């Protein structure tokens, strides 16, 4: 039994999902607050975490959730709309990525953005084939609309989303040659997972999905191309249409399980496999509440297991998590087009997933090549000159009252890791002291030297391997 397995087993299924209440063994401290902000959004800065400590876990989660599921914040939406029309007109995918990063960084509802990204990975569609920023934006809006809504509504709408149809070669799905590929993906990847269907189910479902095509960037149903005969899917026979396909998949008993496992992996842990019994309360709850995603996410975020060692730092940071988390911690304003490029290089090209399977995530984000790039990007974000001016860490420590080599080292270790590793602390302090001596030789005045040390301390703190875990 692996360590992760044993951590899950500490919780009985009932206790696991009950709301967390701080205790002496598990107090409400910056570790938990930072963990919450990392999972419910992409991260937070020092000040935000201090503020968060002042509320109880219940209040804080409630506050963050209320904003996410509430009405749109009109000012922010107006800003984004103004930018968006220009991006769509130019049909520029790089700017489209940058615009989404803008949302992720500045939205008053980071949870909604995180869920949109999750569903983008689930219904993975790549602009590489769709080649239309307008269609990708529309799909993105659809995902955002349903991100914390109901999965059944989302699945039906996505089944006939124009970008999706083009991506899965269903831009012309004709009666004479139904698109099996499309039916397969709807079942295998969007609703049930591998193996819970037969080849026959796929062939029949493909016939039910015929008749849709994309004309002038709109999905249009052509009854002439639709196969109106009877089809048998999952043992049920009828003159099924595309709407029925979604319904049939949802009624399959494996659908809730498939989705719940994915959401668990996203919010709790990528390490280890939770048992059926542990997930059962969630699965049955999700089903009985008609696939209410908001309920599922809220239950997880309030739970005991979420605020425990079974979840904290049990995920590998995706490129978005890594880059946005660092930017938020540094309270910076980087160039977003370049940030999108960095995200691409780390293997997560927004709006361009590698295949309909999406990004595997987890440990696949880390290999020698990407890890080196992450270390280099940590340097790029903190060195303060050129394009890094927007994310310069130089002023942060002083703002929160930390000075001196030891103070700087402690500040950045706590900012990025919440826990200070004594060996790392000593190593950084000695490195800073030697840099101070070198710098004093060429610089006049102490303020620029202190800035230089702050940048070094931030860089070093970011290169600790455990920073890659979120």
């Amino acid at each position, binding site marked *: 039994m692996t360590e992760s397995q044993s951590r899950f087993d500490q919780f009985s299924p009932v206790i696991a999902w009950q709301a967390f209440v701080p205790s002496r063994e598990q107090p409400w401290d910056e570790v938990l607050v930072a963990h919450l902000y990392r999972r419910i959004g992409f991260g937070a800065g020092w000040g935000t975490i201090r503020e968060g400590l002042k509320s109880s876990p219940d209040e804080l989660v409630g506050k963050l959730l209320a904003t996410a599921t509430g009405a749109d914040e009109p000012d922010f939406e107006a800003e984004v709309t103004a*930018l968006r029309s220009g991006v769509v007109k130019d049909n520029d995918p790089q700017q489209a990525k940058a615009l989404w990063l803008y949302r992720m960084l500045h939205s008053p509802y980071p949870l909604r953005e995180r869920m949109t990204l999750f569903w983008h990975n689930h219904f993975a569609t790549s602009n590489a084939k769709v080649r239309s920023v307008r269609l990708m934006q529309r799909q993105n809006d659809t995902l955002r609309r349903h991100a914390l809504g109901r999965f059944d509504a989302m699945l039906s709408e996505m089944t006939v989303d124009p970008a999706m149809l083009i991506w899965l070669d269903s831009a012309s799905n004709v009666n004479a040659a139904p698109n099996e590929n499309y039916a397969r993906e709807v079942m295998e990847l969007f609703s049930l997972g591998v193996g819970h269907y037969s080849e026959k189910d796929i062939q029949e479902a493909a016939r039910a999905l015929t008749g849709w095509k994309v004309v002038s960037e709109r999905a249009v149903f052509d009854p002439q191309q639709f196969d109106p005969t009877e089809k048998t899917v999952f043992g049920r026979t009828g003159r099924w249409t595309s709407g029925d396909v979604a319904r049939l998949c949802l009624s399959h008993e494996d659908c809730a399980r498939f989705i719940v496992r994915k959401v668990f992996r996203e919010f709790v842990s990528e390490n280890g496999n939770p048992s059926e019994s542990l997930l059962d309360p969630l699965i049955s709850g999700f089903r009985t509440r008609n696939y209410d995603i908001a309920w599922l996410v809220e239950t997880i975020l309030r739970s005991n297991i979420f605020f425990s060692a079974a979840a904290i730092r049990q995920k590998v940071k995706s490129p978005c998590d890594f880059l946005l988390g660092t930017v938020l911690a540094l309270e910076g304003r980087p160039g977003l087009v370049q940030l999108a490029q960095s995200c691409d290089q780390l293997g997560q090209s927004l709006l361009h997933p590698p295949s309909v399977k999406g990004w595997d995530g987890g440990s696949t984000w880390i290999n020698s090549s990407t890890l080196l790039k992450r270390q280099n990007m940590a340097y790029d974000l903190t060195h*303060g000159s050129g394009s890094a001016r927007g994310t310069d860490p130089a002023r942060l420590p002083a703002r929160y009252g930390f000075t001196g080599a030891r103070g700087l080292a402690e500040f950045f270790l706590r900012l990025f890791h919440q826990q200070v590793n004594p060996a790392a602390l000593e190593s950084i302090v000695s490195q800073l002291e030697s840099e101070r001596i070198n710098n004093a030789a060429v610089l006049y005045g102490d303020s620029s030297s202190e800035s230089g040390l702050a940048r070094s301390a931030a860089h070093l703190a970011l290169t600790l391997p455990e920073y890659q875990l979120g």
Partner: protein
Amino acid sequence: MSVFRLVLAFLMVSGCGRWLAAAELAARDVASPKMAVLIEVNRPIQLIDNPLGRDVWNLIRETNGLQQFLASPDADRFRQAVKFVEKSLGTDWQTGLARLTAGGIIIVVEPQGSSAEPGVTVVLTAADESILKQFIEAVQAELQRSAAAGNSSSGNGTEKAQKSVVSETKTYRSYDCHRVGNGWFAIAGRQLLVSNGQPQLEAALDRVAGAATAQPFDVPASLRLLDGAGKAAAILITANLGLLREDPKAQAAFKLPANDPIPLFLVGGYLDLVRRAEFAAAGLFVDGPAHEIKIRFPVGTEGAYGGLRGYFASETNESAPRLLQPTGAIFSAGWFRDYKKLWDARSDLLNADLVKQLEKENEKGKSEGLHFGISDLVQWIGPQFRLVAARQRETVYQKKLDERLPAFAVVIGARDEAAVRDRILGPIEGLLLIAAGRNIEDFKKVEHRGSRVTTFRFAEKIAEGDPGKAVLLNFNPAWALAQKQIIIGSTAEIVRDLIDDLERPEAAAGSQNERATDMQQVSLAEVSEFLMGFQERFVRGAVLEQGLSLKDAAKDIEVVHHLLKRLGTLTTSNVIAGDHFDINLRLGPAAQAP
């Protein structure tokens, strides 16, 4: 009392003896006929501290970009330099710098053959000896300190130890010469002499001591540029064109008759000037709220290559036409070029093969197609040409584009209006109607102030199928003949505006000596208005690419607008006389009437 005075006089003479006997170096003392460039900065502090510079600084100081720059390590070098100056001179940096460079800076660059580095000699004249000594001592101390620090921190072996500095000191003619890196410097009175070659330093010291053998070198008097009020330039650069002519690629360009018609017709006259002039000079003048640059070649129409007589204006022909300024003019240019004279001199200007080719083209043009050739064309049009770009105000189309291109027009002098109307414009109109067919509509001729304007527009639906063709909705071409000028414009609006403008009287041709030969003017305020049309794009770029907030982006764009308005107008006018050719550039408010 008289004894005291005698003693005082003796002391003065002996104590200042060295000072009296030593000449202070001026530019002519360090220049030589073999030099490549001579740079004289007469009032260095004026380059930094002037009205235009101050206004620009005040405006950009508020921008996000500059604030970030100042906070970043990139600005550290400047801050360190400033702090160093203040610490070593004991005053704020403006005063310190002013005193340190009060007498100006002279720089001479002299090539030493193709293998060696060119020799650079610098003479810095301070307000007085003491401040110079103070500064030099501080520099020497700083170099010692950083060399020591570099040595101590380079223990890991990958950094090269800094070269030990100030390693040698010699004495030459009772002046101490110090080596720093691979350069030498010496102090003579209130002047600092620096050079990267020992011989050059010694030659300069010879002159200081009055023992120089070579004569001082004076550039032609006409190159000692002064501005309109007789003031000297803030910075004056004199370049030796003789060196340029030695380069084989340049020689190919100068060759006449030429082998390549295009550079000849585009810049042939200018190349001819460069070919004939030994030296040229450029001076920067600070004129109140504006800046001016004057570049002078000390050769003019006299002695020009015969075939190129038509290239520039001269006292025997007209000069450049007055600049046209229709409403919203962003850019306006006018120039003189007598293509007829150039065509007549074609066998002098081009090699035999090219001439034959051109004549063949000419015959072909006369016999086919529109039935006129080059020789006819140059007879009918010229020699005055104008080009104008202005903001579009109205549009004839239903669909209004967000980002509109400016309207353009060319205005060409017509020597033979009837020929132009009947032989060129008439046939072209016919061809156009046939070729464009359904794509154009509303082809009509309207009267405007007695001139007939022919215009058409593109079919509105042309952009429906192909968004790339939407750019055509910026144009509704038009042309007219007015006041012996052919006007061809991208919109009917600009053609009408130009007809109005042409009604104004032409200015006088200028003095008998100097004739304006070409002029340009860019109104930066109008450029700023034009750019407003692209505001959405700039804001989006600032937010997505630079990471600014929307508010900051809007604020920065405001600053750019104010900046452009403050800079006013950029005007260029080139004038030619018998013995010189000047290029005058002016950047600042209130355009100068040419």
